[in-house]
């Protein structure tokens, strides 16, 4: 993060970011990502990672259980749909409240420890929540099958049952699937991003950084870090809950697998891949991972044939069989390689790459900046 910040610069930055987010359908079209479902995922996971980054990027506390909050947000949102109606606004509010309370409870216990012990505690809590959702709490969560809105649900505000038409979230007549859903998620992402930006710049944010830099020193100066870390934990839990709610708003179904530890790991990957502690990094990371998951996994031999059709046949065969390992069901492999390359060569994530390129173009003479390579996680 650059030290040369000013409110004006922040606002310009935010304006440009907003334009970039809202025009994603146009400039992502050429790479095959310009369709609503994926763009919704970009926005939702961008928000999830942004929230995670408030905890991990600022305080350095690595939570391995953030998917639990995502799940709580999802279930709350679907229950709000079931009980109150298909309007997304109550769902969003209820999900934020529920995940906030849940985060407060888990954070209160987990934050008694730091470092690896904290990570393990959060992982344990998340795994417990997953198992609860998967089997014990089946009446509430519908287990493996997933919780859905049914026609027979009470839905107080938009009338019971009778009406025809699909059961999808509906913001005063705008259906929350397709592009409507994307713009809704994008606007929430912008609000979330703005709040994150404010937190990064606020005295509270500086306190959080102090926790990361040297917690002992902070305690010696007579400051108690616990309230700050707990607040950061709850805020990031709320972001996760909000992201969970958005997942259900664009697609009213909540499944337990959302809470699995792999989902918690995914958000850690997103943040590190993009650059922990930077504002934009986690959003880049989230978009990159979701892009791989959705586009690379869909490549099959047919597609590869089209791509490499310019090669002569005897080269094309081997090239396709090698490339085939990295696409389709092998997309994890590609992602793994990419993750390794980034962690080894750009420890600060994609954002470090961006700033290195920026420096090349800046041609600043004289004093070189001190190496600001972000410390790797733990």
């Amino acid at each position, binding site marked *: 993060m650059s030290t040369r910040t000013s409110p004006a610069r922040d606002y310009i930055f935010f304006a440009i970011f*907003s334009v970039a987010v809202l*025009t994603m359908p146009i400039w992502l079209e050429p790479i095959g990502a310009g*369709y609503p*479902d994926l763009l919704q*995922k970009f926005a939702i996971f961008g928000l999830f990672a942004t929230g995670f980054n408030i905890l991990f990027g600022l305080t350095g506390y690595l939570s391995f259980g953030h998917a639990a909050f995502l799940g709580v947000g999802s279930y709350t949102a679907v229950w709000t749909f079931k009980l109150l109606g298909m309007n997304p606004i109550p769902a969003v509010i209820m999900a934020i409240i529920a995940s906030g309370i849940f985060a407060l409870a888990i954070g209160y216990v987990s934050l008694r420890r730091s470092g690896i012990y904290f990570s393990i505690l959060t992982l344990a809590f998340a795994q417990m929540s997953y198992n609860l959702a998967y089997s014990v709490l089946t009446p509430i969560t519908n*287990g*493996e099958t997933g919780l859905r809105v049914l026609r027979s649900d009470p839905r107080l505000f938009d009338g019971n049952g009778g009406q025809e038409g699909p059961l999808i979230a509906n913001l005063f007549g705008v259906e929350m699937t*397709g592009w409507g859903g994307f713009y809704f998620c994008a606007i929430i992402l912008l609000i979330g991003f703005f709040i994150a930006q404010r937190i990064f710049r606020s005295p509270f944010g500086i306190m959080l950084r102090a926790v990361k830099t040297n917690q002992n020193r902070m305690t010696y100066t007579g400051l108690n870090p616990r309230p700050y870390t707990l607040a950061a934990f709850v805020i990031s839990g709320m972001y996760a809950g909000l992201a969970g709610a958005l997942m259900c708003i664009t697609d009213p179904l909540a499944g337990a697998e*959302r809470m699995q530890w792999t989902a918690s790991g995914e958000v850690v990957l997103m943040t590190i891949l993009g650059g922990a502690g930077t504002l934009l990094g986690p959003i880049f990371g989230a978009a990159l991972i979701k892009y791989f998951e959705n586009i690379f996994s869909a490549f099959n031999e047919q597609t590869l044939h089209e791509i490499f059709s310019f090669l002569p046949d005897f080269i094309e065969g081997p090239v396709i069989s090698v490339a085939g390992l990295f696409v*389709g069901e092998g997309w994890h492999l590609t992602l793994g390689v990419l993750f390794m390359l980034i962690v080894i060569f750009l420890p600060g994530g994609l954002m470090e790459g961006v700033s290195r390129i920026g420096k090349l173009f800046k041609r600043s003479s004289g004093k070189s900046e001190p190496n600001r390579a972000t410390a790797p996680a733990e």
Partner: protein
Amino acid sequence: MSLIRKPLNRRSILRAGALGGAALATPTIFTSRAWSAGYLNEPTGAEVVLGFNVPQTGAYADEGADELRAYQLAVKHLNGEGDGGLLNTFSSKELQGNGVNGKKVAFVTGDTQTKSDAARASAKRMIEKDGAIMITGGSSSGVAIAVQSLCQEAGVIFMAGLTHSNDTTGKDKRKNGFRHFFNTEMSGAALAPVLKNNYGTDRKAYHLTADYTWGWSQEESIKKYTEGMGWETTAAVRTPLGAGDFSQYITPVLNSGADVLVLNHYGKDMVNSLTQAVQFGLRDKQVNGKDFVIVVPLYSRLMAQGAGENVKGIFGSTNWHWSLQDEGSKAFVKSFGQEYGFPPSQAAHTCYVQTLLYADAAQRAGTFDPCAIAAALEGFEFDGMGNGPTLYRAEDHQCFKDVLVVKGKENPSSQFDLLEVVEITPRSQVEYPADLLGGELGACNNGA
């Protein structure tokens, strides 16, 4: 952040304002479907795109791989490549092997990961990005039900692949969703008489059940029919999907006093649980003066292959088996074998048939409009697809056909010849009234 170095001035504000305005105006271009077609993803070019959404990873990956092979074969046959397969034996002769409605059939694939979320994301990609007019696949009922409701909301047809839960065409049925595969109700009805003949009416059963819609459904159906003939159910224990290790669930079986173990598992789960049950020596035990037996209500050749020796003598039911000797089955086994070098599984069969049935319905309707295709499929009677005369019942979009009761072969002649057909239960014996399983189809949605 540090990329922007200009101070805030009048010009930059104006520029940002103009860009922002343009950005806010863009949605209207996308949201207005004014000039679009009469229904979602109407094919306008020379191709029609189908979406094949199968598990490529997870507990049902083997089935998924076989399904994908079948889909690719079906597309070949529809486009007139290969030997035409079941098109030659199919009772409806509308399809000529020149595509469907004059359009070449193309396809896109996706990985459901045996997870509802991933499956829906993948199906959405196919619908929104690739313009798929029909989605098919799924090797798990949970996934099939989730994708079916997605297709209903989006307005495309869903042709269910391997999904055996009653709910797919029961409680969770949808107007846009169709299933060729049989269900647990039929399994129960077909299996019970065979179990009665072989194991008698005085048995105590212990269920291990995969903990999701299909497992629950199968447990309920098997309980219903076995209790109907006098069996007792000692306990029914739910196990997580994809557990891998079932030893902790199998140990209590020994002390429960049960003499039958019913494994409501499928795919790799069944392979693991059955193998472990055999390793624990359950089948060598004598309980209540009777030999301890294991029943696997839903069988497939792929699973039998995975479990190897352990399947010998174990009863189960299946939708189709490659050793059947009718014209349709022979034709399908032949063209599948020529293409891939081994016989197809029941998952492959149902997926292949579903693709053909969809194409045929589109051809008969003369359009790809989901509502017209649904109407063409409802109440459709056909034959020559390997299951004998079959009806697509209009009330619940479920196919009714004969059900096979099979047994693990004692002396397999090859690595594929693992199951023998004990009985072909006639269609009349497995039929049930449409309102038995509840649910409501709702109205057809073509996405317009």
